């Protein structure tokens, strides 16, 4: 179908953009890459009276890798982030997750920040934000505020971003040394939203035994679910993991619903299988991160 009628604004700078959003209130919506918003408008699921196109704002195009964090502006596309060797070397989980996001042609337009704000319960990047305790900077005419990790996600397709706010950037903290990550999901077709998926981060101690382990699940609830499975794995050697307790612990905390794609029981089972695989992979990767760099405790 065709999108409904709307007014189009392409503000020349950020100040004008937030002014416009303030004046439009509930009538306005930000247009970033359009890869979620335009399908929803074509299907008449979204009928904004006016769009504020931020794709021409050069100020939002920065991608910065510092010692402690990767910061990207709201103009950075998912494909640019996925193929940025410096950013993905600093945080391999970004690429591990983005490999599962849609297709290259969609990622060429869709932005990473847009995916976070859109808050699809089966989207990959929200799990990354939640797992890394990343934060999104929101700007309005009245100033800026920062929302950290899972707090951004209020429900399906609902994030803690008010109509008058523009998300200007996302900050992903770089995990300490001896941290390994992995992203596993199952989708019917490559590039589709997943039936279930999991992002995992595992931290090893100086003897390469499990110190910390956390998982963020997608597709099994109305927003990403973060579960700490560290206690079920603590002290185990990285290359001889018994993940059964961790998987049981996680499954007991997940209660996915049935829908036309899969039953809740199947999704819970699947989430556990994916968790086991992801933990093993993440632990192996953690052991091969540079052992000469200090762990978090040694560094402080």
């Amino acid at each position: 179908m065709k999108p409904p009628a709307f007014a189009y604004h392409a503000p020349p700078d950020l100040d004008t953009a937030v002014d416009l959003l303030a004046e439009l209130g509930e009538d306005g919506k930000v247009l970033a890459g359009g890869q979620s918003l335009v399908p929803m408008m074509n299907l008449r699921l979204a009928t904004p009276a006016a769009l504020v196109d931020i794709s021409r704002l050069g100020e939002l195009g920065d991608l910065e890798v510092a010692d402690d964090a990767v910061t990207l502006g709201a103009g950075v596309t998912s494909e640019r982030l996925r193929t940025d060797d410096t950013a993905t070397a600093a945080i391999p989980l970004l690429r591990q997750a983005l490999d599962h996001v849609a297709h290259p042609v969609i990622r060429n337009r869709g932005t990473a920040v847009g995916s976070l704000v859109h808050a699809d319960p089966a989207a990959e990047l929200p799990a990354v934000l939640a797992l890394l305790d990343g934060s999104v900077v929101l700007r309005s005419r009245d100033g800026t505020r920062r929302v950290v990790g899972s707090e951004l996600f209020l429900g399906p397709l609902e994030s803690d971003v008010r109509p008058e706010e523009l998300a200007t950037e996302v900050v992903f903290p770089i995990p300490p040394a001896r941290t390994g990550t992995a992203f596993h999901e199952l989708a019917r077709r490559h590039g589709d939203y997943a039936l279930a998926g999991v992002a995992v981060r595992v931290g090893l101690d100086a003897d390469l035994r499990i110190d910390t382990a956390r998982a963020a699940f997608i597709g099994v609830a109305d927003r990403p679910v973060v579960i700490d499975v560290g206690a079920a794995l603590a002290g185990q050697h990285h290359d001889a993991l018994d993940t059964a307790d961790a998987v049981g612990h996680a499954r007991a905390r997940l209660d996915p619903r049935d829908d036309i794609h899969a039953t809740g029981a199947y999704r819970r089972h699947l989430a556990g299988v994916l968790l086991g695989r992801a933990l093993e992979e993440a632990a192996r990767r953690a052991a091969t991160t540079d052992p000469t760099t200090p762990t978090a405790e040694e560094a402080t």
Partner: protein
Amino acid sequence: MTSELTTDDPTDVRELTRERLHEVTVTVNGLPRSATVPPRRLLSDLLRHDLRLTGTHVGCEHGVCGACTVLLDGAPVRSCLTFAVAVDGREITTVEGLAAEDGTLHPVQQAFHDHHGLQCGFCTPGFVMSACGYLAAHPDAEDDGEIRAEMAGNLCRCTGYAGILAAVKQAAAVLRDTGADPRQRHRPDAS
């Protein structure tokens, strides 16, 4: 473009939400083309309805099938998920921009022909444009798995994909030989 705040009283939301017409100029296959369109005009419809370039096909209109894929400043995008006003001033390449002036097929088109990469042809413009964008970024493409993953955003109901995979591989080899940029109009004498 008429996207500036044009009202004296910026608090008048009625003014800010009034649908206006926009003059859009894009370079399509090397030529500047203009049309006056409402913001809701999709790039796919600008091409097909306003500019009468019906080579770009429209299947699902929500980003899933890939039939509408065109190149925007050289990168493949979904024209059904792009508003024409949002790409004012930019460069578009459609399937009409590939074959040589004398009608000689572009190496990607020729490869689809050679390998039965099409049957009904509905999906073909999208596949061809996706392949052109992909091969420009990955001239070394050879691996079946990688080509499948990169082309997975396009759906075909007829061929079963085997011919398409073979076509992309042949096109990659031919383009490596000639060194031609697959996003440019074919020049048979240039090789």
